[in-house]
């Protein structure tokens, strides 16, 4: 049974209003499901509060016309009644959404969907939640510190927060983050606790890992190899920067359920192999060599057959300003093909930097578009008639073909830009 502090009990008893009561009821059920005895206070929450697909709007149309408050009550808080939803008490941000409000027509969205998103967004802001609209809050102004208790959704952001920063969050869901925004509490389970953060599996890297594609492939392999466990990666001689960690973690979280990894001598909780394992004996030691690297490349390209590419999608997870700068450089003096489309997804704050630097304009004059808020998988949006997509993200290559029923090639950013220009896939394992 979960033990409640006095203020938590007061919320559960309804003394802070019906929405916080529903939120505590949900969090208590969740803690009991986890067999967790207590909550931890959090003041850094990232979720998708109350945002509604057209399905949810329609499903709840008999409740206040499917209003923000109705969906927040009935879906987010899993309440059987609609309750008045107050402003959040904890520092909260909204992750990615379904469309770019300035380019919804490019994405093939309807005016109805656009108008719904604008209504939701106004309600989100009105409830005191920051509109970051990105899967990379750490690139848009929400950077936790080591040891900070967070309650984040978005598997790629969770693994970045835990592993690269040393922040503490489980992979939360929509319902738990929305409840945490109102209560400032989350179950004190899993990655909030020291004993849960120790490595369990050893990954020994026997090939040089330097380029972004190599980090993505190593991450994808690692996820398959360890599933939801905690890998300790050793044998890496190259210091990965932010975008390499971003791609590694997103891939590992997609093919497996990796929420925390340690890299010996690189990540904050792994000054040494011994420290990373914290006394655990590795359940398995797995080597990543040339054969594993080739196999991973083949798996990531197993949905590609036709070398005629009609769509190139970059920015999964959302592109950093460094990546947009790289794309602008690769496109300098070039034009993308008449039969191909190039979309690069990022956050609004990074896009405003790209606008300032002239990259958005440069990419547009080459025939590409910088888009915000969403991506092809989240927004279920590809250019009309797309049959074959080229991707530089292992995560997107994992999800998009199944979700959209299209073929996909996976390669370097350079391979993808080449495909955008020539309309042909010419990528090979580097």
């Amino acid at each position, binding site marked *: 049974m979960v033990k409640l502090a006095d203020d938590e009990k007061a919320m559960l008893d309804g003394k802070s209003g019906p929405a916080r009561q529903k939120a505590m009821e*949900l969090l208590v*059920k*969740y803690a009991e*499901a*986890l*067999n967790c005895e207590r909550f931890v206070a959090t003041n850094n929450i990232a979720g998708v509060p109350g945002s509604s697909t057209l*399905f949810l709007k329609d*499903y709840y149309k008999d409740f206040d016309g499917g209003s923000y408050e109705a969906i927040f009550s009935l*879906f987010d808080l*899993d309440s059987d009644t609609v309750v008045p939803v107050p402003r959040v008490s904890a520092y909260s941000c909204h992750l990615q959404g379904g469309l770019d409000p300035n380019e919804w027509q490019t994405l093939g969205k309807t005016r109805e969907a656009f108008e719904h998103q604008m209504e939701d967004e106004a309600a989100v802001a009105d409830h005191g939640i920051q509109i970051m609209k990105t899967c990379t809050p750490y690139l848009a102004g929400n950077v936790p510190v080591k040891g900070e208790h967070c309650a*984040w*959704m*978005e*598997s790629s952001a*969770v693994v970045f927060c835990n592993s690269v920063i040393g922040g503490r969050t*489980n*992979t*939360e*869901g*929509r*319902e*738990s983050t929305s409840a945490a925004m109102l209560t400032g509490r989350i*179950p004190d*389970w*899993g990655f909030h606790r020291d004993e849960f953060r120790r490595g369990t599996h050893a990954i020994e890297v026997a090939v040089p890992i330097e380029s972004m594609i190599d980090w993505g492939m190593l991450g994808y392999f690692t996820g398959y190899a360890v*599933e*939801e466990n905690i890998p300790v990666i050793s044998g890496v001689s190259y210091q990965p920067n932010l975008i390499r960690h971003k791609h590694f973690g997103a891939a590992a*979280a*997609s093919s*497996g*359920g990796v929420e925390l990894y340690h890299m010996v001598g690189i990540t904050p909780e792994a000054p040494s192999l011994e420290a990373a394992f914290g006394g655990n004996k590795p359940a398995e030691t797995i080597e990543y060599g040339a054969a594993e690297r080739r196999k991973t490349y083949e*798996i990531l390209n*197993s*949905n590609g057959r036709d070398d005629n590419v009609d769509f190139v999608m970059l920015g999964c997870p959302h592109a950093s300003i460094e990546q947009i700068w790289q794309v602008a450089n690769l496109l300098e003096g070039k034009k993308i093909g008449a039969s191909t489309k190039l979309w690069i997804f990022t956050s609004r704050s990074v896009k405003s930097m790209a606008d300032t630097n002239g990259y958005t304009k440069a990419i547009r004059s080459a025939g590409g578009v910088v888009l915000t808020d969403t991506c092809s*998988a989240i927004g279920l949006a590809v250019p009309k008639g797309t049959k074959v997509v080229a991707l530089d993200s292992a995560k997107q290559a*994992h*999800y998009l*073909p*199944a*979700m959209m029923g299209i073929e996909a090639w996976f390669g370097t950013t350079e391979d993808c830009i080449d495909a955008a220009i020539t309309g042909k896939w010419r990528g090979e394992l580097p």
Partner: protein
Amino acid sequence: MSVEAPPRNDVIVLHGRKVTPGVAEGEALVTHQTISGWGGINSMTGTVIETRHELRGVSFKDKILVYPGAKGSSGWSAAFHTTRLTKTAPRAMLFTVMTTKIALGAVVMRIPTMTDFDRDPLQVIETGDWVKVDADHGVVEVTKKSHQERHR
């Protein structure tokens, strides 16, 4: 104190921990692979869609879903929550590896769910077996498919 019925040799009994309450029975759907929620299932039809999954194209609607647990996106709970709304959810879930995704998902799906078993359900239960889940009492009764045929 409850009086237990004498053990029947065609029924295998497992004991475990209640994750979420309730009682349900149905046909087992067993996979040794973890399942992704968002991007891994179609919430409108209750089927697995992940490209390389052994259950790709298979529906879990009204089944007793027996699997190691959840993986992938944090949209897991919302994707399975939606199957409750579309009436394509499983009747109950039995799993072996606890994660926040599956714990929260089980709560919002509002179906009986259990874990922490005295025997590995993935070894004992096969697809097609008839499974009664009493999460409130922490008991699972499995009637093997072969025995069902004999009694029919």
